[in-house]
C-alpha cells in the first residue's frame, strides 16, 4: 500500500514546488546588493534587511498589524465560537439564513466593504480610527472563524460532550475542557486563516488608516509605489521566517502539531 502513496506524494511535491518555488526566488532576490530586484542576484548583501529596521514605518506598522490581527482574532473568536457551536450542534429555524449571514463578509468585494465601513464606522458612528480598524478586521475574520470551526465541529462526536455533562461538568466547562480540546486543529486552522486574512488585508485597512495609524501591508504598498529595491522581498522573507519560528514554537511548547491530529 505504501507504493500507492507515491503517485500522490509526487503530485503533492509538484504542488508544493508550485507554491514554494516563487518564494524561493523571492528569498534569493532579497539578498541582491543592488537597488533593483534582480534574478539571479549579483551578489550577497543584507542591506535591504537593515533597511527594514532603519525605515521607521515598517516596525511600527508591523506592530499595529500584529495587535489588530490578534485583538481582532480574539474578538472574532468570542463572537464566532458560540455561533459556530450553535450552528453545527443544533437545528433551529432560520439556521440557513444565519449561515449565509455569517459568511457574507467574504462575499462582498473588499474595497466596497472597506469604503462602506469607513463611511459608517468613522463618519457616521464617529468611532475612533483604531477602533474602526479593529472592527473592520474582526468583520473579515468572523466568517473564517465560524465556518472553519463549524465544519470541524460537524465531525465531532457529541456523545463525548454528553459524557462530560453526565459526569457533572457544566455546559461552559464541558465546552472548554472537552469540546474545545477536541477541535483544536479546527480552531488553530481557523485562527491561522483568519490571522493571515487580517494580517494581509489591504482593502479594509486602506480606508481605516489615518495619521499615525497604519498597517504593514499598507506601508508596504506605499513603499512599492515609490521604491523598487528588494526591501519588500526582504520583508516577505522575514515574515516567512517569523511564521516558521511561530510554528516551531507551537510545536515545542504546545507539544507539537498533535493539534492537527484526528480527534
Amino acid at each position, binding site marked *: 500500500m505504501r507504493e500507492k502513496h507515491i503517485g500522490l506524494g509526487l503530485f503533492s511535491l509538484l504542488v508544493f514546488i508550485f507554491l514554494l518555488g516563487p518564494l524561493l526566488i523571492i528569498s534569493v532576490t532579497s539578498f541582491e546588493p*543592488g537597488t*533593483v530586484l534582480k534574478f539571479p542576484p549579483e551578489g550577497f548583501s543584507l542591506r535591504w534587511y537593515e533597511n527594514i529596521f532603519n525605515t521607521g514605518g515598517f516596525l511600527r506598522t508591523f506592530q499595529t498589524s500584529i495587535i489588530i490581527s490578534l485583538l481582532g482574532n480574539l474578538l472574532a473568536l468570542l463572537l464566532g465560537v458560540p455561533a459556530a457551536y450553535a450552528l453545527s450542534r443544533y437545528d433551529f429555524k432560520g439556521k440557513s439564513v444565519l449561515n449565509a449571514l455569517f459568511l457574507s463578509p467574504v462575499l462582498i468585494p473588499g474595497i466596497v466593504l472597506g469604503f462602506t465601513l469607513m463611511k459608517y464606522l468613522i*463618519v457616521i458612528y464617529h468611532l475612533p*480610527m483604531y477602533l474602526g480598524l479593529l472592527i473592520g478586521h474582526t468583520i473579515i475574520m468572523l466568517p473564517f472563524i465560524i465556518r472553519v470551526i463549524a465544519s470541524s465541529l460537524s465531525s465531532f462526536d457529541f456523545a463525548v460532550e454528553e459524557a462530560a455533562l453526565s459526569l457533572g461538568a457544566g455546559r461552559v466547562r464541558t465546552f472548554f475542557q472537552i469540546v474545545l480540546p477536541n477541535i483544536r486543529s479546527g480552531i488553530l486552522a481557523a485562527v491561522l486563516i483568519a490571522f493571515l486574512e487580517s494580517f494581509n488585508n489591504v482593502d479594509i485597512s*486602506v480606508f481605516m488608516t*489615518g495619521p*499615525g495609524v497604519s498597517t504593514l501591508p499598507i506601508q508596504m504598498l*506605499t513603499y512599492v509605489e515609490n521604491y523598487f529595491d528588494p526591501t519588500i522581498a526582504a520583508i516577505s522573507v522575514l515574515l516567512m521566517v517569523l511564521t516558521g519560528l511561530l510554528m516551531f514554537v507551537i510545536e515545542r511548547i504546545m507539544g507539537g502539531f498533535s493539534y492537527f491530529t484526528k480527534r
Partner: protein
Amino acid sequence: GCGSSTDDATGESGSGGKAANKLVISTWGFSEDFFNEEVFGPFEKEHNVDIVLEVGNNAERLNKIRQGTSNVDVIYLSDYYAQQGIDEGLFEKIDRSKIPNVNDIYDIAKAPLGEDYGPAYTVGQLGIAYNPDLVSKEVTSWSDLWDPAFEGNLTIPNITATAGPMVVDAASRVAGNDTFNEDAAFAELKKLSGNVVKFYSQTSEYVNMFSQEEIAGGPIMEMYFKDLKAAVPNAKFVTPSEGAYAVMNTINVVKGSKNKELAEEFINWQLSQDVQAKSAKAKVDSPVNTKVELTAEEAEGVTYGADVVEKLNKLDMEFVNQQAKAWTDRWNREIAQ
C-alpha cells in the same frame, strides 16, 4: 518625533484636541527618513510643533479628506488629484503673502491650479527611457514609440496612472494635432496598443519589467531613471522632441484646518532654497526653487534648470479631470483589449 507617534492619533477625528502644537501632514511616504531629518524635523524644532504623518497614495488620501475621517492640515498631492480636491472645495484658499518663497520658484510651478491654491513644490518630467541593447533605433520623439522597433517590447502608463493622460496628449501630438484632438489621440493609441506588452500602473512594474528585459522601454518620469540605470547600465533617458510632460506635485492646505497659518508657514518652508537644494541633492525631488544650484553630477536624474523646466508641456488639469471618466471608458474599450 514626527510620524512615529501612534498615540492619540486615533481620537482626533472631529475634535480639536491639542491642535495648536500638532500639524497633520498627508503625503506619499517615500523617503520618509529624508523628510523627517531635513524637512519635518527642523520645522518641528523651529515652530515647536509635532508633525504627524498620514501616508498613502493620492487616491486613498484624497478619499479620506473627502470623508473628513482624518484631520489633515497639509496635503501633498499630484496635480491631477489636487485638481479634484479643488473642484470639490476641499482646500483652503491660501494667502500667498504668507508664502514669500513662492516668488523664487519657476513660473510654471507658482500656481498650476490657480492663484487660490497651492504651488507645485516639485516639477519633474515624463520622457522616454529605453534599453539601447533591445531597441535598434535611436529614440528621439514620442512617435518612435509607434516604431516596429518597440513591437511587443513597450509599456505605457495606464490611463488611471498620473502619466496616463499625458500619453493621451502625446498621442494627439503624434497624430499631428497642435490642439488636443481626442478622437485622433485614441485612434493613434489604438495603433500603439499592438506594441504594448503591458499597461503599467506602478513605476515598480516598469522597473521590474525593464530589469528583466520583458520590455525595452516606454514613457517614465525622469526621477525614476536612476533606478533603471542601476538595473540596466546602458539605459537611456530622452526628452522627446515634441516636449516632455511636466509632472507636478502640489502642496495644499485642507479645508477646516485649525492651523492654517502654520500650514502656510510649512509650505513656505518646503519651497525654501535650503529644503529644495537638499532634496534635489538627495535626489528625492526635482527642485522648483530657481536659487538652487546643482553640479552636473548632482543634476543627473533630476529635472533641473529653467531651460528644461519651462519647456515642459503642461496639461490643463481641470480639463483632464472633466474628461477622466470618458477617457477611462474609451481607453478600456478601445485600447486595453
